[in-house]
């Protein structure tokens, strides 16, 4: 029994299971503190609040796996939602397909700028994307007349998009945006697990020297990671517009902090090489849940919410370096013990046969 646990569950997956347990415990805790917390409405609120974070988190994870980071995703969301929103306000007849394609295309373009600077220019990602973060946003302010996009100026279909329910049970809604986010998680989880590109992302972050010696196309792979991250930020920008409707040049400021938190809390190693999209989704759920719970929990001041978010990030990183190392040790020992015990009976059995 015990050895089966060690064989089928990886230390990294313990992280995901722990997150699930924490989420459940947190739900139960809030249920005792907040009247009517365990309700369909809470589900609807949480699921409405996470899609943008999850989609951006998935993109950021691709980059973080390679030992890089993209801080410009919040600015990309702003550029896309404001830019596309303005176009849409001026020409409400644009088809939804074109709107989405345009959002993703802008994201791809901005991601490619990051990718070229980091992968081919050799500029450290934290500096490069901090620069583009400021750049994207100031370009946005300069080239537009800073006139906010409002729900009133947007066509109905996009304003209504956030409210579309696929399933509705009393006040529990399954809306379309969370479903899209879930689909993104599944697609990219599969990419990480089954595509050779996904394997190479892990390899590059896990041991860059070995990746170089193995002849992997590192620059191209890192570039593509930034482009995909930009594309998902573009999609996130579209979802952001659909969710909020009212966009100005200061929209999505600080969004990157929440996304980095979701990624790190979700167990993606900030030094690259390990992590999963499922974990990122759980990380996003946990953060939103804490946030939503704290808003409604009378005992906690509003100001403490940001502090708690910071604390969560620190805890996540600390547990990553300390706890994961321990877990790996335990696993390695268990495996060795298992190998030894399996070798002995095999040897005696082999001796008896002839």
């Amino acid at each position, binding site marked *: 029994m015990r050895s089966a646990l060690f064989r089928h569950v990886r230390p990294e997956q313990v992280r995901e299971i722990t997150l699930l347990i924490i989420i459940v415990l947190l739900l139960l805790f809030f249920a005792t503190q907040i009247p009517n917390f365990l309700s369909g409405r809470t589900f609807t609120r949480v699921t409405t609040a996470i899609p943008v974070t999850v989609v951006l988190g998935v993109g950021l994870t691709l980059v973080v796996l390679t030992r890089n980071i993209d801080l410009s995703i919040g600015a990309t969301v702003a550029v896309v939602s404001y830019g596309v929103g303005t176009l849409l306000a001026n020409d409400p007849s644009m088809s939804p397909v074109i709107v989405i394609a345009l959002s993703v295309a802008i994201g791809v373009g901005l991601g490619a700028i990051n990718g070229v600077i980091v992968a081919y220019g050799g500029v450290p990602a934290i500096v490069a994307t901090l620069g583009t973060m400021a750049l994207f946003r100031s370009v946005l302010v300069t080239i537009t007349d800073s006139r906010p996009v409002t729900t009133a100026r947007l066509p109905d279909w996009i304003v209504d998009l956030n409210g579309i329910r696929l399933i509705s049970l009393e006040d529990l809604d399954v809306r379309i945006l969370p479903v899209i986010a879930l689909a993104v998680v599944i697609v990219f989880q599969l990419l990480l697990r089954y595509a050779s590109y996904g394997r190479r992302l892990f*390899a590059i972050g896990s041991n860059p020297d*070995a990746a170089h*010696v*193995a002849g992997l196309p590192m620059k191209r792979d890192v570039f593509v990671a930034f482009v995909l991250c930009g594309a998902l930020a573009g999609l996130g920008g579209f979802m952001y517009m659909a969710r909020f409707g009212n966009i100005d040049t200061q929209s999505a400021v600080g969004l990157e902090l929440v996304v980095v938190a979701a990624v790190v809390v979700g167990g993606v190693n900030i030094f690259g*090489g390990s992590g999963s999209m499922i974990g990122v989704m759980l990380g996003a759920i946990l953060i939103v849940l804490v946030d939503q719970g704290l808003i409604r929990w009378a005992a906690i001041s509003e100001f403490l919410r940001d502090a708690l978010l910071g604390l969560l990030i620190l805890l996540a990183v600390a547990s990553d370096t300390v706890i994961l190392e321990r877990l790996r040790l335990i696993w390695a020992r268990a495996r060795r013990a298992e190998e030894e015990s399996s070798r002995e009976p095999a040897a005696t059995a082999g001796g008896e046969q002839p």
Partner: protein
Amino acid sequence: MAERDEEATEQPLSAPADGVAARSADDQADAASAPQPVLEMRGISKRFGEIQALDDVSLDLQPGEIHALLGENGAGKSTLIKVMTGVVQPDVGDIRIDGQPVHIGSAFDAQTYAVAAIYQEPMVFPDLTVAENIFIGHRDRGLIVNRRKMREEAQAVLARLGVQFDVMQQARGITLAQQQTVEIAKALSLDVRVLIMDEPTASLSAHEVGQLFGIVSRLRSQGVAILFISHRLEEVFLVADRITVMRDGRWISTTPRPELTPGAAIRQMVGREITEFFARSPSTPGDVLLEVRELGREGAFTGVSFDLREGEVLGFAGLVGARRTDVGLALFGIAPADSGEIRLEGEAVRIRDPQEALRLGIAYATEDRRGLGLIFSQSIASNITLPSLGKYLSRIGITQRAAERVIAETFRERLSIRAPSVDTPALALSGGNQQKVVLAKWLATTPKVLILDEPTRGIDVGSKVEVHRLIDELVAQGIGIIMISSDLPELLPMSDRILVMREGRQMAILDAKEATQESVLSMAMGQVETTT
């Protein structure tokens, strides 16, 4: 694979038939008498700044042979490997695969030509599984990984090597020997034809070395050409079919193993002139300064014991992996010893960090100028005074810049550091002058014991002589010097006594007057009996 085996078995049969035609031309006679080499290097030369790393080196590797490469540190073995794996481009010379000239411009090119290398420290991806590690370099597998197929094929590759372990576990959990096996499997999965093994046994236990040799001889029987580099002569003479000796970036000899003895190999490795070096002025060492007894650090070295007297140079000889630098790092507190005793001027001391070492009067000039020695962007003056800032150059935490310049100027003159001024940044200097700044930096701390780790590596002959003259001066002032050098022709005349290390153990302390390059190298390679 099957094809290549056929070729190998057909060779003896077809050779006589070729022999008839071969009389017409010498070239063809050569081709017929020996099978076509898989990889052939002709007239390879490579220069790094002032150092001629490779000078007209030629080498060929036959299919199904284990070809050992021998040479002291700095003989050019590593550079030669880098040329073969596309890390370094030769200035002159060509490489042929199956007789065709090729250009190996990158690691990927090397892979295309089925050339792979494994190193002492395996290059695995700790976060990937064993199977993923084996197949990571494959580009021809399409976009989607078939995990079951990958697992089965990984097991099949390991089976070809005669080993078996769980291929779905993460590589971080397996032993070093297993990681090395994974690297060989990775190479094998790419149908490698030339496998370069650089010191593969250095970190393995005796049992694991045995297993590795089992794997290597399997590969040989499968027609792979293996270039085997090891400092353990007994291993080389156990497994190699042919042995090539290099020295000072030059090819010296290539001999079938039965025709070479370990003693002869060592003589070829060392046969270098000593005369060009500076001779020490006669001096008599004074009182015992430093006593070291049974010093050790877990996983690095054990049982190092010696005395160092005032005005004495104690040379540390040994090859890569002898752990001489680790002893230096322990004495300076960077990687403190965990067993044994150190006494300085009769008093027992514990050195836990460099600050403590400096306070006691021990200084260590690193071999790693780039990484640990200099702050490249800063001026000569700031570099020289850095370790002595707290000692006498600052009042209430503020550096006295005038005093700093005076000290820096003094050392610039004394060591004849060639630079426009002491404000010149360190990166603008030549290697030799950078080394002098490193020495000045530690001399400014007025040490009693000075540890010099490879003080003349990578610097020009003129600077070398100046460093030697400086050592002579310091000795006359009564400083005790520990000089770690891989350059035996330099170490022998500069030292009073020589401590020889091999794989973390002290082999002997020799009187430098009686020691010869051969006797020292024999001990460093663990060949005490065979050379006379």
